[in-house]
């Protein structure tokens, strides 16, 4: 992996009480991440590696693999939500 993931400039993750879900906000749109993606995104601070993210998620959920976290992040990078430090 190229580095540690973080939200791209201008992207914000927030919890929407109206819809009872996490939402990703960016200049021209709104995305609703699924619960897995939201849990990963909450840990994308630009200083945490994928391995660390997987291990911290593993403390909350069972069966979390670093490879799965990487796949989720690649998809989010393609959608210009996440970038690498």
């Amino acid at each position, binding site marked *: 992996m190229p580095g540690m993931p973080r939200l791209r*400039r*201008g992207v*914000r993750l*927030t*919890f*929407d009480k*109206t*819809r009872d879900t996490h*939402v990703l*906000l*960016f*200049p*021209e749109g*709104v995305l609703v991440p699924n619960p897995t993606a939201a849990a990963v995104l909450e840990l994308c601070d630009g200083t945490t590696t994928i391995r660390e993210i997987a291990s911290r998620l593993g403390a909350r959920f069972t069966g979390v693999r670093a490879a799965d976290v990487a796949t989720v992040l690649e998809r989010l990078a393609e959608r*210009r939500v996440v970038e690498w430090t």
Partner: protein
Amino acid sequence: MDVTVEPPLGMLAELTHRCPLHCPYCSNPVELAAKRDELTTEQWLAVLDAARDLGVLQVHMSGGEPLLRPDLPELVGRASDLGCYVNLVTSGLGLTAARLARLVDRGLAHVQLSVQGADAERADRIAGAKAHARKIEAAEVVRAAGLPLSVNVVLHRANHDQVGALIELAERMGADRLELANTQYYGWALRNRTALMPTPEQLAAAEPIVRAATERLRGRMEIVYVVADYYEDVPKPCMYGWGARQLTVAPNGDVLPCPAASVITTLPVENVTRRPLAEIWYESRSFNAFRGESWMREPCRSCDLRSVDHGGCRCQAFMLTGDAAATDPVCALSPDRGVVDGILATEAAAVAAAEVPPFVMRKPTVAR
């Protein structure tokens, strides 16, 4: 009602119609709201509270020029504190480093900056003001503050030849996103239609330039190109569906399903000072008029594309046919397509005869 009405995602907050520019393509209504009719700070704060309660997640602070409202930092702060993504849509005039710093401090997330041309001579002529150099400074200020920047250009006959230079300018400005939008003929723009309408040759010349730049800049600067819909044969999707995702609050508190909707004079106009925002969104006649598909008639009613383009633009249908429930006459299947073809033929004849009228610059015509 044949649809489930979802909460709105976005609100265009038109804080004022006052503007330092005089662009002939202005899509705001011919009759603008006067300063004395603008909502007060307290009223806007209440609108923002109601909008977030209703589900709004994106607030576009727009106008006119929103920087002309001294209470802008307070309004940005409230929208941001409520959890909304706050976007400033500005001419850039008045956007100093100090003013931007206050807005960023209050939670501003993104700036959308308008540009009228690729060089000062052309741009200032279109804007009707000495504005271009100040916009370049404003872009620097936004970049220095670390905010994402979108550059918005309205394309028309008087700047279409600059499309390549406009892309390069946006790159130099450090834009993350460039919107190149061919003029939509609403409000003031409609009276300049002949002078604004690009020629087919201009559109054909721009296409490969935009396509190549989009490819070259992929991953660095996103380019969004909005087509000249009179030349298309399928209509643009109306707001992704009337009353589906967005609402507009005009400077005087009028609440509209789209920024141009006041042109549909057969619909009642709701106002946030007289009726709660949620009630307007869910229950008003104007917001329910064209939701779903039951209002459609042929050729829309049985068309495979009806859930894609929603029958096109309701405002354009009203302006060109007098019937807001008609198929958008841009559609090749519309019985009124001849109206659009007639307009194109008239504009082409004016060009051929070198009888294109000069721009009628935007003037602050205020409702009495």
